[in-house]
């Protein structure tokens, strides 16, 4: 197929119906069932929403449909014909394309809009070996005008806004004659106005006969675009609605049964003094005027969807980011936390979200990872590390956090996710925490280790305040004494543990309630 043909054909409305049907789709990683027998149907002229909490299996499903995995269980058919999706090109040839949440991975930043538009043709050599940039730009311009997109073709992609990048990827999909378009959390980082524009575009794509799978956690998007809804929960299909139901029904379907015995029950909360207070904290458009305080002895939870600003808030408190506005008080005094080193000196410690990237040095031993922040404690004259003292401390810590295997000389990369997290938690025990910041502390951790981690967290609260960020609502209610719900960088609701209701929290987090 040549470029010209494609562009010409896309301009016409599709005259046939296409149906993509997935039946019994399953995918397991090790022992974990990420997706378990899910059926889904996407058809021309319909927008099918796929919703679910973090870890419900949404992205696994998307990855199957886009040929990311070379193996999965279940069957995918298009118009009744079974197809194989083992490679990205399989999906591409079947007319399935995706606009990723992180749309940047689909574009080449230092090439122009025109070049990115014809990237596939450039890569396969369909465009011929010698390029006429001007011709390419002219064609791109004509094409974009024909589908009614206003993007200037000579701009480099790195200078586009997120919304414009999404437009470009959608335009490119249309150029490829896309039949099934998957939009992955498209409004997660868009402004209100941009979201409205996107909804309009989605509606017009629908009219053109494109089948759309619309993935989102933001339920307030749904009334704008959606015809049918599938709810995933823990890798299974929890509900299907053939038209948009009451949003509260969706919220109910999203909620998991809490595993109650995971959380420490006998913890007695004795609230101490306020150790950290935050006033009007702001950073870019991710954190907008946050104010709250945390007291010694309590576990304060920040919950909300991914992208609500939880991680950024913790990083601001830890000095890993610098606030644009706002003040932070520790023990009633204003402090400027310029960097993590200073934060640690103030007694503010953080367990970051991505432990392999941000917390651990993977090719160093558990011992070295445990003792890293407080090496001074283990040093003699000339700052020589006292290995026996260090090892003794590392072993004690490993025992305290119940590290498995109990081998501090093993490299961090060879421990399981849960035990890696115990190493990171254990690291901070050597210090004297005032405020312990935990970002998604049980992400990618098995149930057994989860329970241990919750008990560890509960055990440090007699010394300090814990601020824990999580998008898992059961975790928020299970471990938190007080729960702040964040949405778009703002606190939209606060609950005490006694009257925290998962449905309420999720309604606030997803924007069903404002």
């Amino acid at each position, binding site marked *: 197929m040549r470029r010209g043909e494609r562009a010409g054909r896309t301009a016409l409305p599709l005259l046939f119906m296409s149906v993509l049907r997935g039946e019994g789709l399953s995918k397991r990683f090790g022992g974990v069932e990420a997706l378990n027998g899910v059926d889904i149907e996407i058809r021309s002229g319909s927008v099918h929403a796929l919703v679910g909490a973090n870890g419900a299996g949404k992205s696994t499903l998307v990855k199957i449909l886009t040929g990311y995995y070379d193996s999965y269980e279940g069957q995918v058919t298009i118009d009744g014909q079974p197809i194989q999706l083992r490679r990205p090109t399989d999906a591409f040839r079947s007319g399935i394309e995706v606009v990723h949440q992180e749309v940047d991975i689909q574009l080449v930043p230092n090439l122009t809009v025109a070049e990115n538009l014809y990237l596939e043709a450039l890569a396969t050599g369909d465009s011929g070996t010698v390029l006429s940039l001007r011709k390419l730009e002219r064609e791109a311009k004509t094409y974009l005008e024909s589908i009614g997109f206003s993007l200037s073709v000579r701009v480099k992609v790195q200078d586009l806004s997120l919304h414009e990048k999404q437009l470009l990827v959608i335009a490119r999909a249309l150029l490829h004659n896309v039949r099934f378009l998957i939009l992955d959390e498209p409004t997660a980082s868009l402004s209100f106005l941009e979201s409205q524009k996107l909804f309009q575009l989605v509606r017009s794509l629908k009219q053109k006969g494109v089948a759309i799978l619309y993935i989102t956690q933001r339920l307030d998007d749904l009334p704008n675009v959606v015809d049918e809804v599938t709810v995933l929960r823990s890798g299974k299909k929890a509900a299907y609605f053939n038209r948009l139901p009451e949003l509260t029904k969706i919220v109910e379907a999203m909620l998991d049964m809490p595993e109650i015995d995971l959380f420490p029950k006998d913890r007695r909360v004795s609230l101490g003094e306020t150790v950290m207070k935050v006033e009007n904290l702001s950073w870019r458009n991710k954190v907008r005027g946050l104010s709250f305080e945390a007291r010694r002895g309590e576990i304060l939870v920040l919950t909300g969807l991914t992208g609500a600003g939880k991680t950024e808030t913790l990083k601001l408190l830890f000095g890993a980011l610098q606030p644009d506005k706002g003040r932070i008080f520790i023990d009633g005094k204003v402090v400027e936390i310029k*960097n993590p080193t200073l934060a640690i000196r103030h007694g503010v410690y953080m367990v970051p979200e991505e432990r392999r*990237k*941000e*917390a*651990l040095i993977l090719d160093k031993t558990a011992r070295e990872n445990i003792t890293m922040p407080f090496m001074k404690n283990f040093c003699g004259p000339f700052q020589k590390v006292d290995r026996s003292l260090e090892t003794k401390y590392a072993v004690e810590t490993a025992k305290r956090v119940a590290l498995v295997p109990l081998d501090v000389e093993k490299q961090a990369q060879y421990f399981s996710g849960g035990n890696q997290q115990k190493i990171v938690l254990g690291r901070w025990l050597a210090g004297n925490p005032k405020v312990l910041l935990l970002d998604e502390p049980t992400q990618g951790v098995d149930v057994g280790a989860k329970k241990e981690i919750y008990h560890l967290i509960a055990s440090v609260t007699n010394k300090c305040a814990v601020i824990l960020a999580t998008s898992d609502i059961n975790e928020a209610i299970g471990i938190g004494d007080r729960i702040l719900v964040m949405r778009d960088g703002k606190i939209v609701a606060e609950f005490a543990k006694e009257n925290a209701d998962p449905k309420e929290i999720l309604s606030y987090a997803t924007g069903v309630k404002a």
Partner: protein
Amino acid sequence: MKSGVRDQVSNFLLKYGVITTLVILIVFFSLTTRAFFTLDNFFDILRAVSILTIVSIGVTFSVVVGGIDASVGSVAGLAVMLSTALMVIWQVPWYWAIIACLMAGTMVGLLNSFLILKLRIPDLLATVGTLYLVQGLQMWISKGDAVYRGMTNPWDPIRSVTKGFIPRQFLVLGQGFVFRTPQFRGIPVPVLIMLAVVFTTWFFLEFTRFGRAFYAIGGNMEAARLAGIPVKRYRTVAYIISSLFATLGGIVLASRIGSGAVKAGDPYLLDAVASTYFGFAVLGMRRPNPWGTFLGAVFVGVMLNGLTMLNVPWYIQDVIKGLVLVSALGISFAIKKEIR
């Protein structure tokens, strides 16, 4: 069981590959050349690699923090020209000349870290920029002339003959011997300086908390930062140390040749980088380390010394050096992959 044997072989290759090759080389050269296996030649080889080792240790520091310092060659050259010019043209006492060089080295290190940390230029690009800058400065000092006793003063309009000279105290650094006995020529001073540098660095990097922090930064910069290690400060220090060792190497070099030759430091850059990477393979540490770097430099030295004694033409020696480096790294990293 079969795979067990294979694993053991590859483990052995990984750990002792370079050392084994080194021993084989020594035995080979001893058998084929008469002068090779003598104490004097042993120290000759060490002396020949001493300057290279000192410069390489500097590069090792920059590689430990996950960067690379490509300016070391011209920094060494700067020290050669600056020290000799100060003594010969301006008749500055030798110790002030040395101090001036160390200060100049520190400045270059600061400049590198400013470019890399403040302006966020990638390490290699920034230090290549400094390489040219410093190379230009080094030639400017004497207006491109070589510096030697009795030269005409390039800065004097009437080009009078300079009165300064390089004193004995300075020449000892590169040419002296200690522990001389009637039967024994003595240990060359540069060898002692080199060993001191390697020992201190080894202690510093392996046994102190600072060394731990340096390696942590090289292992995972973001994790190190979020564990409270002041990453920027450490990286700045690493680049300063790198420049300082290059300067020290340059001073010893100036003393060794006893005059100021323009661009004398240049060839050290590539050899220093090569020694540092050789060091990865030594003992299978797979990370930059001072003893590895030292052995890497010795390896290069032994090879060149032996090849010269075998009358291998100089223009072929580089080809052999390249082949050996490529295969050492190839073995080390190929095995690494397999183990993973």
